[in-house]
């Protein structure tokens, strides 16, 4: 204090009748003295937020209706010889002591605490027991399941994040999404995350995010803290709201050893805000782009090759019929040669057979018709001689001539003198040829009644 309290004492508030004003340090000292005179008692409750400094051990003693901050000298606490983890959050203890007040100073904050001089561990706390009872109730109602059944978008366009405005969780979420290559729309719903306003505020934020109809997944993130700090995330209303929300909720509350109730009802629980952000975007957009690009490349390849490859295959196949035809032709030629050879053999055999048959027939015919044929030949020869004797040509050769009418049908003989006169012109055929002659139409005097028919007429006579 730079100046004495008494020297700078201000005047009081006009019209106010209480004594003073007194310096605050003096009042704080009096308050401490007053509290220290209170009866020293034993109280019980659950230990929460145990912290140790060099000189003192601090914790809160709680039950469902209230709490008192407690402080115990470090050497007295160590003298109890408690196992290291025996005063976990929620441990039920009995403490002895009385109220005390630390007056603080210019550079130190004042604080009230229950000065603990004795401590006994009494068992697990009611708060944790109540939490477990609530967990069983929600499980029995099937409220752990609805969120797990929700469809999770693999590439959400809009992500909602419920977290404390100044917390590290916010930076972790942003960094994780950046690493993922996700650059969509991020909706922040800031809410207190550890006092008694926390649960209703978080509940409202979740409902509002879902009500926008645009948020596809919600991350609820809070860094580590004591279980007492995390009690907001065990709130029954909050947990029922999460369970029935139509938007999947990914919870990352506290450390991975903590088990706030929101972990059970959420679609997924993650140990850190970073993991929660990654879980919100299951696919890595950058890698997906490569994957889709590869698929597009394969499609383009097949699209190009579809026609080219088939054209080549067709070209190869189109040669097959020609090969087939060549093969068939060769086979047919072979068959033809075989047929010809076979036919030749067969006709030779038949010809030989027929020759023999003809010879036999010939001989049979000769032997059967031999004598009769000789007789017939003689008869025929005689008839031939008789015919030759009567042949007019032979008569001409002997000097006779035939008189023909050249106007009548061929070889119309003129056999009478009257006929010759009527014809006028006659054709006289000799052995060496024919000559035409004109006939005098006047009748001949009565010729010699006895002409010698054997004397031929004078050649050239009319």
């Amino acid at each position: 204090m730079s100046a004495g309290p008494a020297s700078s004492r201000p005047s009081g508030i006009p019209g106010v009748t209480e004594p003073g004003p007194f310096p605050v340090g003096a009042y704080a000292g009096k308050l401490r003295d007053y509290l220290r005179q209170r009866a020293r008692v034993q109280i019980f409750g659950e230990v929460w937020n145990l912290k140790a400094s060099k000189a003192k051990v601090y914790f809160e003693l709680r039950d469902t209706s209230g709490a008192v901050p407690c402080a115990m000298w470090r050497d007295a606490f160590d003298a109890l010889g408690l196992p290291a983890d025996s005063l976990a959050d929620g441990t039920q203890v009995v403490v002895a002591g009385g109220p005390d007040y630390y007056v603080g100073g210019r550079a130190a904050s004042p604080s009230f605490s229950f000065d603990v001089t004795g401590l006994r561990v009494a068992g697990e706390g009611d708060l944790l027991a109540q939490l477990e009872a609530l967990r069983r109730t929600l499980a029995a109602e099937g409220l752990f399941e609805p969120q797990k059944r929700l469809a999770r978008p693999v590439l959400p366009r809009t992500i909602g994040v419920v977290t404390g405005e100044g917390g590290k969780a916010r930076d972790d979420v942003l960094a994780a999404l950046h690493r993922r290559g996700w650059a969509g729309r991020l909706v922040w719903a800031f809410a207190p995350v550890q006092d008694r306003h926390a649960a209703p505020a978080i509940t409202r934020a979740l409902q509002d995010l879902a009500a926008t109809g645009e948020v596809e997944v919600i991350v609820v993130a809070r860094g580590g803290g004591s279980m007492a700090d995390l009690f907001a995330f065990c709130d029954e209303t909050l947990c029922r709201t999460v369970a029935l929300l139509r938007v999947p909720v990914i919870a990352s509350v506290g450390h991975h050893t903590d088990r706030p109730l929101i972990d059970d009802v959420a679609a997924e629980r993650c140990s850190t805000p970073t993991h929660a952000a990654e879980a919100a975007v299951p696919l890595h957009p950058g890698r997906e782009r490569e994957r889709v690009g590869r698929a597009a490349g394969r499609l383009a390849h097949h699209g190009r090759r579809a026609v080219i490859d088939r054209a080549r295959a067709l070209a190869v196949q189109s040669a097959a019929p020609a090969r087939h035809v060549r093969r068939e032709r060769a086979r047919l030629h072979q068959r033809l040669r075989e047929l010809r050879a076979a036919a030749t053999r067969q006709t030779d055999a038949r010809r030989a057979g027929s020759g023999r048959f003809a010879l036999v027939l010939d001989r049979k015919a000769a032997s059967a018709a031999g004598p009769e044929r000789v007789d017939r030949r003689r008869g025929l020869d005689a008839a031939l001689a008789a015919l030759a004797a009567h042949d007019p040509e032979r008569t001409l050769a002997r000097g006779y001539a035939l008189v023909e009418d050249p106007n009548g049908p061929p070889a119309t003989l003129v056999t009478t003198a009257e006929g010759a006169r009527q014809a006028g012109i006659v054709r006289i055929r000799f052995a060496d040829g024919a000559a035409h002659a004109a006939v005098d139409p006047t009748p001949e005097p009565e010729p010699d009644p006895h002409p010698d028919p054997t004397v031929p007429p004078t050649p050239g006579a009319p």
Partner: protein
Amino acid sequence: MSTPAPTYESATARLEEIVRRLDSGEAGLRETLDLCQEGRGLVEFCAAELDAVAAGLQELRLDELVARLERSPTEEAS
């Protein structure tokens, strides 16, 4: 033929299936051309989905989003 896939997941699954079928070499010409066409549609769909989450990080507070959503119906009406 399936209609264009409603989700990115089903689209990529179908796309992989198509590529496997084409890579197998068992598809005939008509099927190959059909599959290529269907695949191109799926690639376009997937690319659009990826573009939507790569447009650039946009941060806004819940109350801003709510205000914007409340404003937009009147804008549409006017």
